[in-house]
């Protein structure tokens, strides 16, 4: 039976970095993974990662896997066994794994378990129908094997995985009919949510799936609003025509092997469920067994990699007596910094139960969106949620973006230094930066939008400019398309200057006409037809089509309508009449006026 100084079980980000670190410190180790390639969940992550630039921020997940794979293959201290499924950990530090239909046994001095997590299930009627998938399964099918399992998707859960999956599905050219979220706020990062909202995907908060519909496979889903006890509210049911339902309601650690290895396990919901008890250096209650990654707490790849490194360094220190305390403490500090932001409050609370306390950095600075000097080509950074990421600061060649000590702070742009190079636009993992330049004289604005869909529009092409909800704002002409090696290309469009603060996305014109006035359901083509028939006065257009006459009083669409009228007639918006504002500014019930509230 072969024996190793250390065996690492699980070749995801934590395990790979663990093995590399062990190898670099001279610890001979065996890395076991049940898949045929290393990388774990990274191989299906086509999006760029957040984080510290020193830790692969703004690199796409599968590219991180490739980089780590290369490092492993270059390190002679690491032996890799893929397609190796560990079936159990037996007495006398014996690991049994299956490979190619044969049984293998190895022993270890130290064990690093990085088995990760699996997707949680959600019980609902007909959840056994073909067409109900876990989000990870869809990502594997789509991003690893190039198979898209449906045409119209409903996603359950608005955590980062659900949000990212929605984006990837749209990139793959299929439709996402919506994301339902049981609680009253979006679970994942705001930038991920904004990315899909501006592609027109609705996120329905306080909603759940009631049942899947279908005989042989999914042909629809019934969703409903839920009350504060998560019970569906009768009468709010709504049917969505979808052929695939992706459940993405969170992950739970795979702690079985750790239990078999003699680690104490505790149920800590903030960390994802049953997790091995461990100290700051990732050592479990069995001093020979270490853990890292999602097995220790459900987070993301960056923290998993740092944990893998900490665990490996500690193993190396114990085995070799190497004097690397300082290095370990540095990594612990870095990890704490990652977890010091408001989005990590849950993790901090969970770790508290192990006596690991991380100070939430109180002075995380949050800044609103800066507009910058009108007329200059510049970056507009719409990143107002504190998440641990500094890629924009790191890539800016002119030091024009400042985040500061704590990478949870939001970026501040120094517009004196910003040259409009757009390097940050293509680097930002959240696609939260776009370019803007107004031409006041010509009443036009140039907007540079990060674009990760195919095909790319071409120069001179007529597009639809969209707002943050993916709704049509105005027509746009493509002025320039700049391709970047990282595949986050930038499409520069020209739009009327009035919409320079509204437009955040661009799409090819659709045959179906978009609603301009959602209250009265008036489409773009209806408005254009009316204008073409000679109705060129906004007031007449309004009366004929009912546009702007609904409950919102035109707050949402009046400017859009004026923009269409201006485009069709050549009269600048400022010269068009825009109607009279009448009370009530917001609709009020008759009952308001049946009782006079004035003091007598």
């Amino acid at each position, binding site marked *: 039976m072969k024996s190793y100084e250390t065996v690492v079980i699980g070749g995801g980000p934590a395990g790979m970095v663990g093995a590399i670190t062990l190898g670099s410190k001279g610890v001979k180790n065996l890395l076991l993974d049940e898949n045929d390639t290393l990388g774990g969940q990274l191989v299906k992550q086509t999006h760029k990662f957040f984080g510290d630039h020193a830790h692969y921020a703004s690199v796409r997940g599968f590219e991180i896997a490739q980089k780590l794979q290369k490092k492993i293959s270059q390190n002679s201290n690491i032996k890799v066994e893929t397609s190796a499924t560990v079936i159990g950990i037996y007495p006398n530090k014996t690991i049994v794994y299956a490979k190619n239909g044969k049984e293998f046994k190895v022993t270890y001095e130290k064990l690093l378990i990085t088995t990760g997590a699996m997707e949680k299930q959600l019980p609902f009627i007909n959840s056994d129908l073909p067409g109900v998938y876990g989000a990870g399964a869809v990502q594997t099918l789509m991003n690893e094997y190039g198979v898209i399992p449906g045409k119209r998707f409903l996603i359950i859960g608005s955590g980062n995985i659900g949000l990212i999956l929605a984006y990837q599905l749209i990139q793959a050219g299929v439709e996402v009919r919506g994301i339902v979220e049981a609680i009253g706020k979006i679970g994942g990062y705001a930038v991920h949510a904004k990315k899909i909202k501006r592609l027109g995907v609705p996120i329905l908060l306080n909603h759940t799936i009631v049942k899947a519909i279908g005989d042989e496979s999914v042909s629809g889903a019934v969703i409903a609003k839920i009350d504060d006890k998560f019970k569906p509210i009768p009468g709010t049911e709504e049917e969505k025509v979808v052929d695939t339902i992706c459940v993405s309601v969170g992950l739970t650690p795979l702690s079985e092997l750790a239990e078999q290895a003699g680690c104490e396990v505790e149920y800590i919901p903030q960390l994802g469920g049953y997790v091995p008890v461990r100290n700051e250096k990732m050592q479990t209650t069995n001093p020979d067994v270490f853990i890292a990654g999602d097995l220790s707490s459900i987070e993301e790849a960056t923290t998993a990699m740092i944990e893998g490194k900490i665990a490996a360094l500690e193993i190396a220190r114990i085995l070799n007596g190497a004097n690397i305390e300082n290095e370990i403490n540095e990594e612990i500090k870095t990890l704490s910094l990652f977890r010091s932001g408001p989005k990590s409050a849950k993790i901090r609370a969970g770790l508290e139960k192990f006596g690991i306390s991380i100070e939430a950095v109180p002075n995380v600075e949050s800044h609103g969106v800066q507009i910058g000097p009108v007329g200059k080509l510049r970056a507009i950074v719409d990143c107002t949620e504190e998440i641990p990421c500094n890629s924009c600061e790191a890539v800016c060649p002119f030091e024009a973006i400042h985040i500061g000590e704590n990478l949870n702070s939001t970026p501040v742009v120094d517009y004196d230094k910003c040259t409009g190079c757009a390097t940050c636009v293509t680097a930002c993992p959240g696609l939260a930066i776009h370019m803007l330049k107004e031409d006041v004289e010509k009443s036009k604005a140039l907007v540079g939008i990060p674009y990760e869909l195919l095909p790319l529009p071409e120069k001179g092409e007529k597009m639809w400019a969209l707002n943050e909800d993916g709704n049509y704002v105005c027509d746009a002409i493509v002025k320039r398309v700049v391709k970047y090696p990282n595949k986050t290309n930038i499409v520069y469009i020209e739009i009327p200057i009035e919409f320079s603060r509204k437009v955040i996305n661009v799409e090819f014109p659709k045959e179906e006409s978009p609603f301009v006035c959602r209250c009265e359901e008036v489409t773009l083509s209806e408005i254009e037809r009316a204008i073409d*028939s*000679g*109705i060129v*006065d906004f*007031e*007449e257009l309004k*009366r*004929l089509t*009912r546009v702007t*006459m*609904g*409950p919102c*009083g035109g707050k949402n669409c009046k400017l859009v309508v004026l923009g269409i009228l201006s485009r069709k007639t050549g009269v600048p918006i400022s010269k068009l*009449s825009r109607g*009279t504002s*009448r*009370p*009530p500014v917001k*609709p*009020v*019930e*008759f*009952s*308001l*006026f*049946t009782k*006079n509230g004035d003091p007598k």
Partner: protein
Amino acid sequence: MISEASVVIIGGGIIGTSIAFNLAKFGVKNVSVFEKSYISSGSTGRCGGGIRQQWTSPMNVRLAMRSVELFERFKSDVGMDIEYIEGGYLLLAYTDKEIEEFKRNVKMQREEGLNVELLTNRQIAKKFPFMNLEGVKGGTWCPTDGHANPQIANIAYAMAIKRMGVELNTHTSVESIDTQNGKIIGVQTSKGYVKTNVVVNAAGGFSHEIGLMAGVDIPTYSERHQILVTESVNHILDPMVISFQNNYYVRQTMHGSFVMGQSDKNPAKGNDLGHTVEFLEEMAPKMVHDFPFMKHLHIVRQWSGAYNVSPDAQPIIDEARNVSRYIFAVGFSGHGFMLAPAVGEAVAEMIVYGRSKTMNISNLGISRFENKIEKEHNVV
């Protein structure tokens, strides 16, 4: 803009455009319409949209009945769906005296050929179970009354006359009317001068002012009437309902919203088109009382428009005595929209034949005010 017009029509509201439409149908060329703002910017675009034949004056009944005939053909005649529905009119009576008056009206209206009947409280309750009929003794009901979208009707006429060759000048105001020896020779507008011998005053809220431009003192004045619209809900109410006692009218549009209004106690005179919160405070309790389901209905918008009022609340359609070929169709007192198709036809006939042929409207002449004034009562 043409420099010489066969007829100049002042006012691009429902009356002016209906007259132009009928002239174009007669083949009259070089008709020019001047509208100082946009189409439906005046009273037409602000009105309740009711189409009623139940009047107390036989002349109004006849004009309205002819209009209904034309409204029924409007879509094919003029070329646009104007949300016309013959949902009826329900007029509510609360006292024995009112019932007696309603009986007399029904008798007269039936003699004019109108299908109208008196309903008891119970009959009304059966038809409209969602209404609170507390205090209602009865009412009158005419199933061929109805309502339509006045704004679209006005735009429909405007688009039709442009297609038929009429020159429609919006955002063009008339500044003066030139006369010589009791004859019209031209009109000065904000966009230029046009020679003409025939002018029609269809200026609605501004009829008196336009009259004075040719030295004709038309006894009309304007007063503000307020109106509101609610959110759109499922269809429940077919007819226009009027309560003179509670001082309101209400209808549900084909679009689903409810449109309603009243006569204010001291309406602002002139063309003040502002709005007051008192209007909402007065409307809300009575509407919620009579239509309890409205309690949680949302008010979306309030606005106002001018009634161009004549001394007997009936229109004045005539040619001026002192200025030949100066014709006016004014003073509709809040009922111009519903009479417009018939008035357009009559005025076009006056211009082409010298008198209206389809209907005898001689008793709508201005000279009637020299005698005792017989006022139309059914006005909200």
